[in-house]
C-alpha cells in the first residue's frame, strides 16, 4: 500500500511524504518513505494510539479528528507524536474521497469565518472599505470573551454578512475580502 501524506506542522510548513508499507521477510515490517527504506515495529495499544519502535526509539503516536464545526464538515485529522501535533492529509491513490478532500483548499476571495459559535458585538469596517492584512473587521463574543476577527489579506471588504447582535455558528462566513 502506498499513501501520499501531507504533514503540516504548527508553524504552517507543509511537507509531503510518499509512504509505502510493505511486509518484511521477518515478522517486522519495511516501509519506504520517499523511496528510502524505513524499518520499524508497530503495535496498537488502543484505538487511535500507535506505539512505534524505530531502531529502538520509542514513539507514542495518537490520532485525533477535530470536532466537526457548525457546517457539518468533519474537522481535520491530526497526528500527535509525543508532544507535537501535525495536521495530516492522507490520500490513497486508489481512493476518490482523498482527492475530493484536497479540493477544499482556499482559492479566490478570502472569507472571514467564525471559528466558533458566538454573538457579533461590533463591526469595525464597512462594505467597500479598503482593509489591511490583520486589520480587525468583526468582533464576536463567546464564553464571556470578545475576539476580533482580522482580515486574512489586504484588499477590499467585498461583502459583510455579519451584523451586530447576530448569533453565529462555527464556520459561518461573516465577511469576504477581495
Amino acid at each position: 500500500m502506498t499513501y501520499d501524506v501531507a504533514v503540516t506542522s504548527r508553524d504552517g510548513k507543509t511537507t509531503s511524504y510518499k509512504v509505502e508499507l510493505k511486509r518484511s521477510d521477518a515478522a517486522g515490517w519495511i516501509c519506504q518513505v520517499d523511496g528510502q527504506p524505513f524499518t520499524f515495529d508497530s503495535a496498537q495499544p488502543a484505538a487511535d494510539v500507535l506505539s512505534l519502535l524505530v531502531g529502538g526509539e520509542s514513539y507514542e503516536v495518537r490520532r485525533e479528528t477535530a470536532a466537526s464545526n457548525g457546517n457539518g464538515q468533519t474537522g481535520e485529522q491530526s497526528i500527535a507524536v509525543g508532544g507535537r501535533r501535525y495536521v495530516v492529509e492522507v490520500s490513497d491513490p486508489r481512493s476518490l474521497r482523498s482527492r475530493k478532500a484536497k479540493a477544499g483548499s482556499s482559492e479566490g476571495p478570502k472569507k472571514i469565518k467564525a471559528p466558533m459559535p458566538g454573538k457579533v458585538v461590533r463591526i469595525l469596517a464597512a462594505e467597500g472599505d479598503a482593509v489591511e492584512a490583520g486589520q480587525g473587521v468583526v468582533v464576536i463574543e463567546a464564553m464571556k470573551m470578545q475576539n476580533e476577527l482580522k482580515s486574512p489579506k489586504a484588499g477590499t471588504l467585498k461583502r459583510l454578512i455579519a451584523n451586530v447582535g447576530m448569533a453565529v455558528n462555527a464556520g459561518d462566513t461573516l465577511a469576504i475580502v477581495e
Partner: protein
Amino acid sequence: MFKKILIANRGEIAVRVIRACREMSIASVAVYSDVDRTALHVRKADEAYAIGPAAARESYLHIERIMDVARRSGADAIHPGYGFLSENAAFAQACEAARIKFIGPTAAAMNIMGSKTSARRAMEAAGVPFVPGSSRGLTLDEAQKVADEVGYPVMLKAAAGGGGKGMRLVHHPRDLASAYEGASSEAARAFSSDEVYIEKYIAQPRHIEVQVFGDEHGNVVYLGERECSVQRRHQKVIEEAPSPIVDPAMRLRMGETAVRVAKAAGYTNAGTVEFLVDAQKNFYFLEMNTRLQVEHPVTELVTGLDLVHLQLRVAAGEKLPFAQADVQLRGHAIECRIYAEDPDNNFFPSPGKIAQLVTPSGPGIREDSGVFEGWTVPLDYDPMLSKLIAYAPTREQAIARMLRALDEYFVGGIKTNVELFRRILHDEDFAAGRMDTGLLDRMLAKKMSNSDLRDSAKIAAVAAAIFALSSAAKSSDSMCDGPSPDETKSANGNGAASGWKRTARREALR
C-alpha cells in the same frame, strides 16, 4: 460542623469542594443547568438539582433558584466556589436571611472590597500602598484630567470588575475616549455597572498575591505568596508558589500588609490580596479577591494545608488550627490552567466533545479536573477544563516535572493550550524567574523555531499511513468473520491490538 453543603458552582471547583465534603463526611448538593446534567460535579455529589437553562444568569447566577434548592435539600451551608456568585454580596445576604451559612466573608466585607473605589478608600485609611490614580469611578472628562495628572500610560479599570474584564491600557491621550467607551461597555456587560476609574500604568510589573485566612475569632494569617505574572489579556495562565523574587524579608512585609488589609475589612475565611510589584520590588495594593482563588492548590502544596477543609472549619466557627509561626513553606509548586482554546487561532474558545483524554499522574502531579472523556464542553461557560499542578523540592525540578506531565497530557477532539505551556516553561526568561505581566505577550510575538516543531514530521507521516491502512482493514474485516491467524497466535490480548499488521500482510499477499 455542617451536615449538608450546597455547591453553587460547576466544573473543577465544584468537584474540588464536593471531594472536600466527602473527606469530611458532609453531604454535598450539586446544582446544574440543562447542559450540565451529566457533568462531573452532578455525578460526584450526593444530591443534584436542576436550576435552569444553560445561560448562567438563568441558572448559576440565579440566586432565587439556588436558594430554593438549598431550602428544599436542607443544606445548612453554601460554598460559592469562584466566579459566578462567589463575590456577590446580595447572594451572601440572601444566605444570611435564610439562615444558611455562606462559606466566605461577610456581605459587609465583600461590599467594601467589591467596589475597587471603596476598597481603595478603606485601604488608604489602613496605610496600604497604592498605585497613583483616582479612587472612584470617573466620567470621561474626569478621566482625561486624572490621566494628565498621573501621566501616560494609564490603565482604565472597571470599578466592579475583576479578572481583567473591562480593563484597557492607554498610551496616548487620543486613545482615551475609545478605550473608555470599550472598557465601560465591557464592564456593563460583565458586571452590570459601567463605572470605570484610572490608575498610573506601572511598566512591566509583576503580579504577586498573598493568600490570607481569617477565622471568626479575630485571627488572620497569611499563607505565603503566589507569583501570577504569566498572564494573557490580564488573565492568569500560570501561577506558582513561592515567587522566585520574594525573599523571607519581603514575604514578611507583604504578608503583614495583606493581613492589615484583611483586618481593615473585617475579613473572614479565605481571601487573596493582589499586589503589583515594580522592578525595584515596591509593591502596590491592586485588589482583594473575596473568594477562594483558582490557583489555591499551589499554596496548598507548599504549605501542606488543605484550604477548602480550612474554609469549611472556619465557616463552622472553628478557630484557625495553627498560628502564623506554624506556617512553613516547603518546595515549589506550579499550576497550569488547561483551557479549551486554540493558541494558534488567537486563543478562541474551542468547545466540543472530548474524544480522547489522557491525564498525567505519578510523583508530584495533581490534577483538579472538571471533565472526562466523552464530555462535551459547553460553550456557555468559562472554557477551563482542568488545573494541572506540579510539586517538587525546587523550582527547577517543578518546571521539569510539569513539562513531563504536559507530555503525558492528551486531549483529543478539541483544541487546548497544552502546547502553549510547553513553550512558556521552555522559555529562558521564565526559567530564570525573569517575569512580568508582559512576558507572555512578548513570547507570543516571537516566531517559533521550525526545527523545534518539525523533526518528527516523518514519524507522523508514517503513522498516518498506518492508521489509514488499519481503518481500511476494519472495513474489510467487518465483512469476513472469524479472527485472523494473528489474533489467535498473539501472546496475550495486547498482541491482538496490532490490527494494521495483519491487514498489511493481507495487502502484501494480493
